[in-house]
């Protein structure tokens, strides 16, 4: 393991991390506008939309919940889909815990900021001090911007009338695809993606809305358990 505290963080290194993190924060936070608009189009109120961004604060899960509701699914199956997608934050937490080395209320507070981007901007740092700067700068800047942008998008979205006229129903598919895209880095992920999509479509005529997406999660379980060799080792 590393011995983080032996490495002091120079002012120069710190400001470089802050600069990079703010850039990521700005780029990510602003697409809260699309979440806000799509959430209202899916039938949630402005209050519910803002509550999701404030309290859930993990983009893919938020999009998933409103996506299931937009397709006519039961709210609880939307919630379950959001939770399944949220499991990857647990994985990030496991990786970051020894590096960030927070405990008590600091850890409880940091947990709320644990998302894709704050992980990406801290997991590669060589010291605890550097990792904390990357994590907090990215996490806090996204939190502030994401919530402001969500509110703006929700208010604008509720003022424009039938969302289908503006293609907002197609925008949800585009948003999910853009979230999926960077994860399709190896053949195994692509096979899982295609199988999951096919299974979900096969179940659409047969099952209540929301169920096809949850069932597709089973493909990940199956592939992860059965697929021992090859792809898994080549990643290490």
């Amino acid at each position, binding site marked *: 393991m590393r011995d983080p505290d032996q490495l002091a963080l120079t002012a120069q290194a710190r400001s470089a991390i802050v600069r990079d993190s703010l850039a990521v924060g700005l780029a990510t936070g602003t697409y809260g506008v699309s979440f806000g608009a799509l959430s209202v189009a899916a039938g949630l109120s402005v209050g519910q939309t803002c509550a999701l961004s404030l*309290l859930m604060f993990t983009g893919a899960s938020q999009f998933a919940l409103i996506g299931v509701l937009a397709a006519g699914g039961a709210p609880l199956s939307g919630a379950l889909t959001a939770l399944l997608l949220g499991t990857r934050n647990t994985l990030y*937490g496991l990786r970051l815990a020894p590096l960030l080395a927070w405990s008590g209320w600091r850890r409880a507070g940091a947990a709320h900021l644990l998302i894709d981007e704050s992980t990406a901007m801290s997991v590669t740092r060589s010291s605890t001090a550097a990792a904390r700067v990357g994590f907090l700068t990215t996490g806090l800047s996204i939190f502030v911007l994401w919530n402001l942008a969500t509110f703006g998008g929700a208010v604008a979205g509720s003022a424009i009338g039938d969302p289908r006229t503006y293609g907002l129903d*197609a925008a949800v598919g585009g948003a999910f*695809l853009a979230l999926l895209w960077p994860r399709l880095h190896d053949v195994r992920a692509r096979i899982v993606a295609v199988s999951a999509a096919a299974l979900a479509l096969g179940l659409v005529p047969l099952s209540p809305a929301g169920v096809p*997406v949850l069932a597709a999660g089973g493909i990940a379980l199956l592939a992860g358990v059965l697929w021992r060799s090859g792809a898994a080792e080549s990643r290490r």
Partner: protein
Amino acid sequence: MIWTAVLLAALGCYLLKLGGLSVPPRVLERPVVERVADLIPVALLAALVAVQVVGRGHDLVLDARAAGLVVAVALLLLRAPFLLVVFGAALAAALLRLL
């Protein structure tokens, strides 16, 4: 009902984050856990794309949303940023419906 789902899912998502930061890293060393955790977002997002674009109630329908998805794929291949992909998909579908 929507409020219940919003609040329960938000609480659950927070506990999933806190759980990860609190659990000893040994758990992750089991490769099965890591593989499944990596693949779950892939499977769910792919299924969400499919259902969102082709599903309507219990029917499968190819309409302007599919055209939006084609534009989204093209923009992603050109490495366009997230907002542009979302906006492009919406614009394509909206224009097609105007025709």
